[in-house]
């Protein structure tokens, strides 16, 4: 295994593009090291991104949005009051990844690039309409987060491409987001089902909504038909039930050691109802 | 004489009567006498048994059996 401490994204991309064996990028390392130790993946080239300028930064953009560096650990997201105020759902999703110790290392981008359908950090980004800033041999591009996962353990990134940062849009008035997952214990489990909802209200009425679900399909995905049910409503009981049904209908989970298909399908609907309420309350000004 | 209470799975080695009388003053003598009277019991006893004498469970052969004591043969106990 060759270890590279890249100084720029271009250098990292160049090393990756030229490598002919197994390549891994090291940000938080909480997935890479587990795979390395278990003998599942021993990279030929391991490219450490933490020595690149700005990768630890959380930056407010001119348009009011946010840029989150590739090596920002979950604990730092949670400690950033302004970001938490704008995007509590994004932050709470990332904070559910692993233990306090893991929060000291794990990153949003790593959570995304690991390609797990159950990644807790990702549904919130998808619901928020976040984009990934990608550096590759052909320069830089931006694509929506939901276009990155390609299936369990896979992404759409090409050889030599890597994510330099994640960008969140400006929160704007009347916005609220939330994420919840279901796990059998209270902590330390991989999500059995997850749901993030981001919405905007005018008065009591929802005017915009995005619904993302996790752990119930090969990738984390948007459920636009569920979001449409929310728009125009005041999240009355009938709408919440219809939302739950639509989300369950969009789920296409497997049965595995973590849960049955039937259970996941049902519970993701339950979560959608609960998450919508939290997002709605937050949008109306209750920041809890 | 000691009256020994066997477990019912031993019926096929000793017949229907699950209480067997043997001449013995210790657990070891009792086990030896049992095997002498019913040789088919030997492999079962060799695998290890615990013996309750008046409610107290013993593993050792040296333990004396008082006159009139209540004696039960049990599967050997083991803990975690």
């Amino acid at each position, binding site marked *: 295994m060759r270890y590279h401490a890249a100084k720029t994204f271009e250098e990292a991309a160049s090393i990756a593009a030229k490598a002919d064996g197994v390549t891994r990028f090291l940000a938080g390392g909480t997935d890479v090291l587990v795979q390395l*130790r*278990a*003998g599942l993946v021993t990279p030929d080239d391991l490219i450490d991104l933490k020595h690149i300028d700005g990768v630890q930064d959380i930056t407010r953009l001119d348009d009011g949005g946010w840029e989150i560096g590739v090596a920002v650990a979950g604990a730092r997201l949670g400690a950033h009051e302004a970001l938490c105020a704008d995007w509590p759902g994004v932050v709470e999703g990332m904070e559910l990844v692993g233990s306090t110790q893991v929060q000291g290392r794990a990153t949003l981008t790593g959570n995304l690039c690991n390609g797990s359908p159950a990644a807790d950090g990702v549904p919130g980004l998808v619901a928020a309409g976040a984009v990934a800033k990608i550096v590759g041999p052909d320069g830089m591009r931006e694509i929506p987060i939901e276009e990155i996962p390609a299936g369990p353990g896979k992404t759409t990134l090409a050889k030599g491409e890597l994510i330099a940062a994640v960008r969140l849009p400006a929160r704007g008035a009347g916005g609220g987001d939330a994420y919840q997952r*279901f796990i*059998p*214990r*209270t*902590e*330390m*489990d*991989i999500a*059995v089902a997850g749901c993030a909802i981001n919405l905007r209200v005018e008065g009591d009425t929802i005017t915009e909504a995005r619904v993302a679900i996790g752990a119930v399909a090969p990738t984390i995905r948007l459920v636009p038909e569920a979001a449409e049910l929310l728009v125009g409503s005041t999240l009355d009981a009938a709408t919440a039930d219809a939302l739950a049904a639509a989300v369950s209908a969009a789920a296409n989970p497997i049965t*595995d*050691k*973590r*849960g*049955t298909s*039937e*259970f996941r399908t*049902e*519970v993701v609907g*339950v979560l959608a109802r609960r998450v919508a309420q939290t997002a709605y309350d937050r949008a109306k000004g209750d920041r809890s | 004489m000691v009256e020994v*209470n066997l*477990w*019912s*799975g031993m*019926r*096929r080695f000793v017949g229907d009567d699950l209480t067997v009388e043997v001449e013995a003053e210790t657990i070891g003598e009792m086990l030896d006498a049992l095997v002498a009277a019913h040789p088919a019991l030997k*492999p*079962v006893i060799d*695998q290890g048994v615990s013996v*309750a004498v*008046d*409610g*107290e*469970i*013993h*593993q*050792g052969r*040296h*333990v004396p059996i008082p006159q009139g004591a*209540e004696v*039960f043969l*049990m*599967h*050997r*106990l*083991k*803990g*975690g």
Partner: protein
Amino acid sequence: MAKDEFREFRLVGTRPDRPDGLDKVTGRARYGADISAPGMLWGAVVRSPHAHARIVKIDTSKAEALSGVKAVVTRADFPTGLTGDEWDLQENTMAGDKALYDGHAVAAVAATSKLRAEEAARLIEVEYEVLPHVIDVDDAIKPDAPVIREGAADATVPEGMPPNVVRYFEHGRGDLDAGFAEADLVRENTYRTEATHQGYIEPHACLGQLGEDGKGEMWVCTQGHWFIRKMCADVLGLEKSQLRVTPSEIGGGFGGKTTIFMEPLSLALSRKAGGRPVKIVMSRSEVLRATGPTASASMDVKIGMKKDGTLTAGRAEFRMQGGAFWGAPVDMALDCAFAAYKLPAVMHIGYDVLANRPKAAAYRAPGSPMAACAVESLIDEMCRELGLDPMEVRLKNAVREGDRSSYGPKFKSIGLVETLEATKAHPNFSAPLGPNQGRGIASGFWFNHGGETSVTIALSEDGTVTVSAGTPDIGGSRASIALMTAETLGIPYENVRVNIVETGALGVNEPTHGSRATFATGKAAVEAANAAIKEMCRRAAVEWGIDPEAVEWVDGAAQPAGPNAGKFPPMSIAEIAGNMGSTGGPISGHHEGNLGGVGASFGCHVVDVEVDPETGRTTILRYLVVQDAGRAIHPAYVEGQYQGGAAQGIGWALNEGYVYGEDGRLQNSVFLDYRVPVASDLPMIDTVIVEVPNPGHPFGVRGVGETGITPPLPAIANAIHAATGARLRHLPMNPPSVLAAIKAVKGG
């Protein structure tokens, strides 16, 4: 019964700091993996990826060619001709003709670094012929199941039983038919529990060294180093006394560290590597795949009950698999099943069944939790059906001293009724409950064990004392042994140091198992202290020129027994010790034996749960453990045993369990998916120590370590039923199972 009633003791019942506390909070304590030796090599083990496969060929040439590799061993390096348990241990240590479970060791390698050893292990090529496998106990007991080993049944198994049945149990008494006929309600149900792992946080680790001359040493984390010595010597054909085994501090065991796994491999590798020491540390995945889980069980229970709650008859038929070797704790499960109840008629039938899983090791009260899960659930179900209070039914049928036990003999002094009464009196028993909340209670039982024990105490020149004990300290037993020794000698607790010594320093000691360390080692330490007191009195008598019988030991000093014995000031232990060189030499006391006098321990747990009706997730709101300790020597560590046992039982009830794929491979061999309770899963665990002294121990001790894991399984099932109306009869009661059961009740 409150512990404060026993104030006649100076030290017993107090809570001093444990002697090993400082080492353990500073990181200095040395566990299995913490020792290295000059010239040390690292070992790694190659394990079968198949549940059942014939080993066609093992090619070690590439590994041997790797620089830094010093030894490779396979089964061909072990002696042949072993039989019985010794063959089983050898076969489990290293597969012979067949790999019998996913994770079964097939080869091992030693090299100059950990990474090099792991590389070499990956270079060993094993050719397998995959065979049909069987995992579930109810499948394994079928007549046409894949046969794991011909001729493995022992003498208890009648002709014509299915091929994987290796032991058969049948015992009972009374007229069962008449008992059921007399009942107003007879119910029979089937209950299933999944295999769980002891889950000690310290993975198995050892450092072994063995020369061509057959002399060897080992440093190892174990509950019993004499067991390790005997088993390693048996498996490798060594003379036992030539192997010196030193126990490290042990990072949890719960029964799982009472046997060998990779320890003989380190010795075999060392011998082949010219006697260089070899360290092997298991990964968590190896621990879960290849070391002792407990058995899985499928259990039919039938009970007869009168309208007033009187039990008339009970029948239990248990099937358990304990892996590819005999040893599922069916026998003990059966003995424990109805132990808390007076029953005029009872019958127990059991089958120990082979399956393609790792060899079961003991796990805290082996068999009792499964049995309780079945019996205590059914009792609760029947109480509900008859509209009876489950606590009153337990009290009505509770066994007392002199009652005949379900397993045969009459009970000596026991504290079940006192335990149930103390439970009723606790505020948790009557705390108000909200919506979706429910309360469950259940009893539990464990026999406890005395066993082979050898202890020496020795005086130092300053009158302080060392105790040499042979039972590794898992949960604070050095503190309790020091308390009992100091109490007996009449000296301060701090003046006693308890050392857990290596195999050469004492006669054979059984492991710390069967809840016996404080009971048996404590009892032997008291006897050893009494022997030393006798010698000290003799020395004083010689000094004073009086009859040794006229000297008594009071408050840490010899003194004349009454005015007729002579007038001498008391001679303190420090004075006697200071002069011992000139009064006859060293003073020590020794006691050894196969110790009896054990007292069984009953417990009762009360749990309040809240179940999320939409997701099936169970939250433990309150938890109470009440248990008879006989006498609590160090109450804080007694409480610790209660709380730890309850937590393990809660894990077993809710989320732990081995998950196998269709391919027979273990799917959850990491802590991420083998879900032991975490801190946020549990509330504070309330405890009440009931003290009904055991007359078989000088201070009245009953073993307390094991009973606590028994009641949680049924108590939580009973609580979930109370909260939801749904009865879970299969563990684990994880959210998918609970939600499905809730929906079934609702007819959805």
